[in-house]
């Protein structure tokens, strides 16, 4: 349990790392739009090129990107196979009577699978280069115009920050409780799924109790330091939109424009 790292932020000081989190969120949205606009497999090379440039500039090793694809590997395989079966086409490669493998189906399978891979890889570029705290700061700023409609942008960001902050603490706590109950002969490893589920109760209840206690303590600690919500609150880390952020957005827009041009021309 100890080896789980939160999010997947890799600290660094590259151009990409130093971009404003709002810029990076914007870049990701544009990138996703770009990827969804692709209609032919060969044009996936445009978002692919964009991703490669970002990867090189960020100095993140390719290993992290591959790791981020691990959780979706079964989805990718399933999508690939289903599309092989359900896409109709003329160019028959293999005829088994009940099912024909066609060139179109193969191309379509590759296309959809590659698109998902590019989407996941692009999204993980954001979380790999932006710390969770910077990310919530950026989200808060981006959502703050919605405050006009009484959208609780600050509260939402604060909740996310606190939740992220407490993941390692709770992990530590559950480790401790687990050790204590194992010392009293509790067995978490044997038995069927119901038995195992039931054996988690001696861990979960103390964990809940301590979470509530910690929440209470945190609330008192925040109030005793005059926390009163987002209004008029200044920040330690000011988000600044700099020239480099403008360039990053412009370059991304150029890629998107190139994508749209290919769509119109073909």
């Amino acid at each position, binding site marked *: 349990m100890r*080896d789980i790292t939160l999010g997947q932020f890799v600290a660094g000081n590259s151009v990409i790392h130093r971009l404003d989190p709002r810029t990076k969120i914007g870049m990701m949205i544009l990138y996703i739009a770009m990827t969804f606009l692709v209609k032919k497999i060969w044009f996936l090379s445009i978002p692919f090129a964009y991703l490669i440039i970002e990867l090189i500039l960020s100095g993140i090793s390719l290993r992290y990107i591959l790791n981020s694809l691990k959780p979706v590997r079964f989805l990718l395989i399933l999508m690939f196979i289903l599309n092989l079966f359900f896409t109709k086409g003329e160019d028959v490669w293999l005829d088994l009577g009940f099912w024909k493998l066609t060139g179109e189906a193969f191309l379509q399978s590759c296309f959809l699978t590659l698109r998902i891979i590019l989407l996941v890889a692009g999204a993980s570029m954001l979380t790999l280069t932006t710390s969770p705290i910077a990310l919530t700061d950026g989200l808060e700023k981006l959502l703050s115009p919605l405050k006009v409609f009484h959208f609780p942008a600050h509260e939402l960001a604060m909740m996310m920050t606190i939740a992220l902050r407490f993941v390692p603490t709770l992990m530590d*706590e559950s480790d*401790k409780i687990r050790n204590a*109950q194992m010392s*009293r*002969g*509790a067995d978490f490893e044997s038995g069927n799924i119901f038995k195992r589920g039931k054996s988690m109760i*001696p*861990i979960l209840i103390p964990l809940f*109790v301590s979470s509530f206690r910690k929440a209470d303590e945190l609330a008192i600690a925040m109030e005793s330091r005059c926390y009163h919500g987002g209004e008029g609150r200044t920040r330690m880390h000011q988000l600044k939109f700099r020239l480099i952020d403008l360039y990053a957005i412009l370059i991304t827009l150029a890629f998107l424009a190139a994508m749209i041009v290919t769509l119109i021309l073909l």
Partner: protein
Amino acid sequence: MSIEINHLTFAYTQGGKKLEPTLNDLTFTIEEGHFLGIIGHTGSGKSTFIKHLNGLLPCEKGTVKVDGLDLSEKSERKKVRALVGVVFQYPEYQLFAETVAEDVAFGPKNMKLDEEEINARVTEAMHLVGLDPDRFSSRSPFDLSGGERRRAAIAGVLSMRPKYLVLDEPMAGLDPLGRREILALLEKLRAESGCTIIMISHSMDDIANHATQVLVLEKGAVCMYDTPENVFSHAEELQSIGLSVPNVTQICIELNKRGVAIPSSICKEDAFIEWFREEKAHA
């Protein structure tokens, strides 16, 4: 019968890499019937060490044998957990059941004892820690006071009737009365059932007054392992590794400096009082 620790070495891993060893080649034997006090600076490996006494952490290098049962054998770990009871820091945070009696019964139930035996053990353990079963059995552990909760949690370990009781700072955060109650409980256990006590504490006074053996850990290695009198006579050495001597020993050192001939090996309050009475009688 004893706990034998042989060349025990352990290092935590972080991000797939081994860190500096937390325990470095520990070799010693804990004899049955003793009250062993473990002292050491924060990060000296005390808590990591006690996790090896009932197999919560695997023996990577070296062996730990409890009454001859080898803890590197997975099948023997369960047996050892019935022999070695461990009370961790702030044990009250592990309470989970609806009633105190149910929580105390958790250990014996896991040992697959029959109903009658479980009930007998629960009553016995609650009596031992000073929680009257008639009053507390059916109360929720979350309604108790801090000190009562701690005692209920300790009862949850005692109900397994461990032959070796390991405690990690059992008095942390308790008031003086609570501390005295826990120490009295440990003395009673040792006198009545011959239970071996292994206690980590930052209070040199408590260790000096109650322990029969003291283990000093420093950077994961055994620095000293001797009687409290012998250990606490090395005041300078202890100070150099961030520890101190009991108040009584400190008084003896100061008296010595001022020309009073008092043996520097005195560390127990009773021994000091006895010395004082004798001196007075001589005079």
